[in-house]
């Protein structure tokens, strides 16, 4: 990557795209309030399906790298999304994975605990609200009188943006906080950027910004949020709540812990961390207050019934193992190709 879109005399070009995500990120962009006008001053918005009409083929026709900045939110779940990722990569000078979904998979990636088959089964058959007597399911190609209709291919495994194309910068958060978004835009406009491929954000974790008082930790049992009314002063983790603040990148000003709700880790891991879940596992395990294997087992089994939901709620796609094993899901484990 080159200097990442330094300020130019004439306006730069800005694209925003929405792949597999809830859309919250689109709204979050507007969360920067009147500053959006400053953005409008700096950029022409060339592509933003959520708010204005546009045609993909127009983008396809643009010269490579002619878009100065692309804010891409959402994970990659279908062939179309992957195509758009590749296309916008090719056409953009600076590609930003905007928000948790694009950055690390987020909630859509929890689907990686299931297979396409299971998901379709639920969505098009099992759910009580479904009325689908013929058991029709989405097809990539459908013959109709007018010709062949195409639907994107639905992947087995949700990918992060970074797993399908090279990403210049990451902006974590579900959604990213308005201030962080603005900081990033400023950084991009002024060219004061970290090394390509890195996150624009803090280098420490939520605890750093959490007002609660912290002490040495010893945990005899983990509690679910509904089990206790946490003391307002002290660290939630010390009260047994699985608070991911210890491992989650600062940036949210500790919104949740401040109001007594444990951090769920939406801002993703700290700089240089390879696997968010591993950090949570090792940290929590380290402070379990028992040396008896059976008791330890009990504390873990009873306290953390859903380890993936607790440790990989936002990062499953971006984790080292990415998904649940396909073996034993009708898929024979693919033999190694030497």
């Amino acid at each position, binding site marked *: 990557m080159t200097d990442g879109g330094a300020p130019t005399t004439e306006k730069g070009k800005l694209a925003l795209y929405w792949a597999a995500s809830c859309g919250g990120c689109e709204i979050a962009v507007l969360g920067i309030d009147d500053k959006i006008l400053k953005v409008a001053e700096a950029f022409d918005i060339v592509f933003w399906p959520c708010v204005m009409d546009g*045609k*993909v*083929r127009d983008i*396809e026709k643009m010269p490579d790298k002619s878009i100065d900045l692309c804010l891409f939110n959402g994970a990659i779940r279908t*062939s*179309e999304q*992957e*195509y758009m990722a*590749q296309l916008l990569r090719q056409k953009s000078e600076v590609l930003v994975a905007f928000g948790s979904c694009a950055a690390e998979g987020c909630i859509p990636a929890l689907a990686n*605990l299931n297979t*396409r088959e299971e998901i379709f089964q639920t969505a098009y058959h099992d759910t009580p609200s479904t009325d689908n007597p013929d058991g029709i399911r989405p097809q*990539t190609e459908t013959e109709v009188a007018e010709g062949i209709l*195409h639907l*994107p*291919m639905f*992947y*087995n*495994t949700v*990918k992060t943006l970074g797993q399908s194309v090279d990403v210049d910068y990451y902006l974590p958060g579900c959604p990213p906080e308005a201030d962080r978004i603005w900081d990033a835009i400023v950084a991009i406009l002024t060219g004061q950027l970290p090394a390509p491929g890195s996150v624009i954000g803090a280098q420490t974790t939520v605890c750093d910004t959490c007002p609660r008082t912290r002490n040495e930790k010893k945990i005899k049992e983990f509690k679910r949020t509904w089990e206790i009314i946490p003391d307002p002063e002290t660290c939630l983790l010390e009260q047994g709540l699985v608070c991911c603040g210890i491992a989650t990148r600062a940036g949210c000003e500790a919104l949740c812990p401040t109001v007594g709700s444990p951090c769920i880790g939406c801002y993703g891991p700290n700089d240089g961390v*390879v*696997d968010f*879940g*591993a*950090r949570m*596992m*090792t940290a*929590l*395990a*380290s402070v*379990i207050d*028992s*040396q008896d*294997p059976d008791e*330890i*087992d009990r504390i*873990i*089994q009873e306290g*953390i019934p*859903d*380890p*993936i939901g607790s*440790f990989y709620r936002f990062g499953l796609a971006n*984790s*080292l*193992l*990415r*998904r*649940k*094993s*396909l*073996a*034993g*899901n009708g898929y024979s*484990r*693919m*033999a*190694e190709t*030497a």
Partner: protein
Amino acid sequence: MTESDFEPKIVGFLCNWCSYRAADLAGTARMKYEPNVRIIRVMCSGRVDPTFVLKALSLGADGVMLAGCHPGECHYIEQNYKTIRRFKMLKHTLRALGIEEERVRLQWASAGEGALLASAINEMVDQVRKLGPLHWSGNWMDDEGAQEAIQALPSEHAEAMEVPA
């Protein structure tokens, strides 16, 4: 590689004071055991970060063995108790991801227990060989036809007709 001649690749993390010395002893005593475990020396089993295990599996290892001093015998007094806790926590998660029990193992072996370590290695290699390759990355390989579907899109867009205003 077919199941029959499949040879598991296992990464072993051995603590410097007990289990690595056990490996030394197994050597000096010329005890023959399966060559499938490749050993990384750490000062204490307490150094083994769950990340190491996940990393090894994601890189293509078929199993991971953690080995340390017996509980209560740790050369850093009590650090291997933390190993127990982390191991249990990690297994809890690995189970949820559908990774078989036998693929990740915690083995205590004191400096004098070369034979124990050797037999543990043989046992594990045997178990993992039965399970077959893990080949974890296979789990997220591109779905069949994905590339075609992507390649097809530009032309589809080209074909699509302009809607008259």
